[in-house]
């Protein structure tokens, strides 16, 4: 086994590895249009915002980051190629301000603007100076002159089963030095991606994030028919347990890239 270069942080976690895939900042995805999800008789219909980005080639893979702001509740619906084999990717997000959020018992037909930032495994040509790493195949894997991914914090939102205590969600503090947080949220709601009535369509219903204005990242869940006690037809079985799911978030500082 050969390694060109490996660097670990003080906790012993790998943070640089010439044989891994370095990620580099590419730019913002462009807003395409609001896209109407497939309606569902048990959960309110909510419009999402579709963004697109064309990567430099079809083998490059994206990592999507959402810029956090106060009063802008965000979630990632899904990331996928616009068509099989295409270098153009679609990113569908949920984005609402507090006014929209407070109306979450009704169908949401509008969205709030947002910034979708894209990193990718593509290694840019780079500047004429700096450090560039190559993997064992001789292909470039990292270039430190062109916005290498610098994850400042890994947030692990834990599962919350106490519906009363966590009715309004939960919060994790940002580590020092991150003034312009962008997040890559894992395990989001994905209702649009699931057939109506399918397993997974409700228990992860809709979890959204915002900057809480006090140095933290706040998570909450949108209301649904179920929570309101409304009757949306025959009850879906099994009924969701209202837990907030475990969710993994990566945080970068947008100031490192813009």
């Amino acid at each position: 086994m050969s390694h060109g270069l490996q660097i670990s942080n003080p906790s012993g976690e790998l943070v640089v590895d010439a044989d891994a895939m370095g990620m580099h900042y590419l730019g913002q995805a462009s807003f395409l249009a609001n896209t109407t999800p497939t309606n569902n008789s048990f959960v309110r219909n909510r419009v999402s915002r579709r963004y697109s980005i064309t990567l430099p080639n079809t083998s490059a893979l994206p990592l999507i980051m959402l810029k956090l702001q106060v009063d802008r509740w965000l979630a990632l619906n899904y990331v996928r190629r616009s068509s099989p084999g295409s270098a153009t990717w679609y990113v569908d997000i949920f984005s609402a301000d507090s006014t929209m959020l407070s109306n979450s018992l009704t169908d949401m037909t509008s969205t709030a603007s947002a910034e979708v930032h894209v990193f990718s495994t593509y290694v840019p040509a780079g500047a004429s100076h700096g450090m560039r790493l190559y993997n064992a195949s001789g292909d470039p894997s990292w270039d430190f002159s062109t916005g290498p991914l610098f994850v400042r914090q890994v947030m692990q939102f834990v599962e919350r089963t106490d519906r009363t205590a966590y009715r309004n969600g939960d919060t994790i503090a940002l580590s020092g030095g991150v003034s312009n947080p962008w997040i890559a949220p894992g395990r989001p709601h994905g209702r649009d991606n699931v057939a109506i009535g399918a397993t997974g369509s409700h228990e992860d219903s809709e979890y959204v994030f915002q900057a809480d204005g006090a140095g933290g990242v706040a998570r909450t869940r949108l209301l649904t028919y179920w929570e309101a006690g409304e009757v949306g037809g025959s009850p879906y079985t099994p009924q969701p347990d209202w837990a907030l799911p475990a969710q993994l978030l990566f945080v970068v500082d947008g100031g490192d890239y813009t």
Partner: protein
Amino acid sequence: MSDFGLMVWNSTNEVIFDSRNAQGGVCAGAVEVSPGATTTLTYPQYAGRSARVLQTSAAGNLVSVSYTSGYPAVTLTVPLTYVNPAYFVIFLY
């Protein structure tokens, strides 16, 4: 805080990478998994390391990580009932 590491500055003298403050691990790849499919990715060259998976589309517990072979093995399963492929980004640390 370690006194050892790699720091990178941009042309305006701002630190854009500092291995002492970096977290998350290194990206080992990303994969789209179609509805009804299961994909297992193994990383024998990373024996003793751990994996984090960012499941960036689709809800539900679609990820399992095993270390029984001494290295990370990531299994991604997307139910047939899902409409679109799910997308995962894998980090090793």
